[in-house]
C-alpha cells in the first residue's frame, strides 16, 4: 500500500492495462512469451485459449504473484505496486479452503483489508460497504452463513463481492464461470456488464467458447503468446481460433523451439 508520491513516471496512462514484452518461465520452458497487450478502459475483456495457454499465469504475472523474466506492466500508466487499491482480483474458487471458520460477510470485508492497512480493524462503515457489495451480488440474506454451507455459485459470488467492495477501477477474474449453475452465470455476467457500463474495466479468463461473442466486447486469444487481441467482432474469427487452439504454437518463426529439448 505504498502511496509514495514519487512513483515512476506515467507510461501509456490512457490505457487501463498496458503489457509490453512480458515473458514468464516455469522451469526451463517459457509459460508466457513476449506478451504485448493494450486494453482501453471501460471494456469487458475475455481471455481465451487452450489448457496450458498461460491464461491464469498472465493475470498472476500482472498482479506480481509470479516473477517476470522480462517485460513490464502498467495499469493506468503506473506499475501494479502503485495501483494496488484500484485493482480487484477474483482468484479461482478452488484456490482456498472453504472450511475456514468465517462468514460470507467476513470474506467480503477482507477485500477492504488493503485499504485498512496492517493495524486498523474493520469498523461499522466497512461492514456496511461489505453488506452493500453482498446486495449487489444478491447474497445479502446469507451474510452470516458459514462459507462451507454456501453452494459453488454462492461462493463464487462472495468472491466477486469481495472485489466489488474495493470499488476498484479494473477487475481481474480467473474463470469465475467455472462450475457454476446457469442462474449464477447470468447474474455474474450482468454484474460485469453493469461495471463496464459504469466505466470500469473487467478482464475475465474464460473457457466456454459458445458464450464468448455474447459476453465480451474485447477479446484476447492466446496460447503462451498472444495470437490476436481487439474488439470481439474483429478478432473472433475461425482463422484466429484455429491458430490459438491448433496445438503447439511456435514461439518464433525460426521454426524450432530450442527450449523444448
Amino acid at each position: 500500500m505504498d502511496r509514495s508520491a514519487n512513483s515512476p513516471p506515467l507510461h501509456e496512462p490512457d490505457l487501463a492495462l498496458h503489457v509490453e514484452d512480458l515473458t514468464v518461465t516455469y522451469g526451463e520452458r517459457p509459460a508466457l512469451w513476449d506478451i504485448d497487450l493494450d486494453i482501453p478502459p471501460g471494456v469487458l475483456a475475455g481471455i481465451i485459449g487452450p489448457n496450458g495457454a498461460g491464461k491464469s499465469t498472465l493475470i498472476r504475472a500482472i498482479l506480481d504473484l509470479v516473477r517476470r523474466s522480462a517485460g513490464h506492466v502498467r495499469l493506468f500508466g503506473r506499475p501494479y505496486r502503485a495501483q494496488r487499491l484500484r485493482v480487484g482480483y477474483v482468484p479461482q474458487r478452488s484456490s482456498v479452503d472453504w472450511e475456514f471458520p468465517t462468514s460470507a460477510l467476513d470474506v467480503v470485508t477482507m477485500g477492504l483489508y488493503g485499504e485498512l492497512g496492517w493495524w486498523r480493524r474493520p469498523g461499522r462503515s466497512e461492514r456496511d460497504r461489505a453488506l452493500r457489495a453482498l446486495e449487489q451480488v444478491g447474497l445479502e440474506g446469507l451474510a452470516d452463513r458459514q462459507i462451507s454451507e454456501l453452494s459453488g455459485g454462492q461462493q463464487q459470488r462472495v468472491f466477486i463481492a469481495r472485489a466489488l467492495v474495493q470499488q476498484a477501477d479494473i477487475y481481474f477474474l480467473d474463470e469465475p464461470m467455472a462450475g457454476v449453475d446457469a442462474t449464477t452465470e447470468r447474474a455474474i455476467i450482468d454484474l460485469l456488464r453493469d461495471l463496464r457500463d459504469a466505466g470500469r474495466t473487467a478482464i475475465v479468463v474464460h473457457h466456454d467458447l459458445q458464450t464468448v461473442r455474447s459476453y465480451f466486447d474485447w477479446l484476447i486469444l492466446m496460447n503462451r503468446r498472444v495470437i490476436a487481441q481487439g474488439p470481439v467482432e474483429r478478432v473472433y474469427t475461425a482463422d484466429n481460433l484455429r491458430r490459438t487452439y491448433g496445438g503447439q504454437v511456435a514461439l518464433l518463426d525460426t521454426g524450432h523451439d530450442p527450449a523444448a529439448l
Partner: protein
Amino acid sequence: MTDLLISPAVAIVLTGMLVGAAGALLGVFLVLRGNSMLSDAISHAILFGIAIAWLLTGATSGPVQIFGAALSGVLAVFLIESVVRTRRVRQDAAIGLVFPALFSLGVVLLNVFARDVHLDEHTVLLGEIGFVWLDQLTIAGWVLPRSVVTLAVILAMDALFITLFYKALKLATFDPELARTLGFMPTLLFYGLLSLVSGTAVAAFDAVGVVLFICFVIVPPAAAYLMTDRLGVMLFLAVAMATASAPLGYISAMALNVSIAGMMALATGGFLILALTFGPRHGLLARRARRRRLTDQPTEGTSSA
C-alpha cells in the same frame, strides 16, 4: 516447605494453563494452515540445536542452550519450506525428511564429541511440570516459579502478535495470494508465527515436556474447529479448553498417581471427544439430527458443500 508465594499445586496448574493458552493460541493458525505436524518436527529438531550450542559454547544448560534450541526449531522450519519450494516434495514429506535428519545429526554429533559428557534433552530441558515449582526466582521481592514467569512473558508476546496481526493472519491463512495482492506479506507473517511457535515450544519443553506441548498446540484448536464457524470464537474456545485441561489433568493425575503432564494432555483429548459428539454443527449427534430432519422433509434441504 517454607513460605512459598504460590503452593506447588498452584504453580503446576498455572504453568499448565499458561502453556495451554500460548500453545492453543498459536495452534489455531497451525491447524488451519495444515501445519500442525510442524510442532512435532520442532520438538525433534531441538536436539540438533542442543548439540550445536554445546559444541560452540560448551554449556550443558542455561539460556544459550535454550536460544540454540529455539534457533534450531526455526532452522527446521526454514529447511522444510525450502524443500517444499523446490515443488518436488509435498510439505508432509518435507517435514518427515528434515526433522529426522536434524535429530540424527544431533545424536551423531553428541555421540562423537560429547561421548563422556552427560548431555541430552533431559540435561538441557527439565521437561517435567511436576518440578516447575522447585525452580524459583525472585522479582521485586516476589518468589515466583521461573517457568510461570517465562511462560507468562511468552504468552503475552504470542497474544500481542495475534491481536496485532489478527486481520493479516486471518487473510494470509485463508487466502495467501489475495493477501499478497493487497500488500500484506504472507511468508513473512508465516515465519513470524513459526518463530513464536519455536520459542514457545522450547519454553514449554523446559516446563512441561514435548508431549503436553504437541497436545496443547493441536487438540484444543481441533476441538474448537469442530464447535464454531467464527475464527474469533475458535481462538477463545481453544484457549479456554486448553487452560481448563490443566486443572482437570492435575486433579486426575493426583487421583491416579500418574504423570501430571500426561493427564493434562489426555484432558484435552476429553474435550475433543466432547466436541466430536456434542459439537453444535459438526458434532456426530448434530450431524445425525440434521440428517434425520432432511429425511423427514426431503424438499427443503440446504446443500452444504
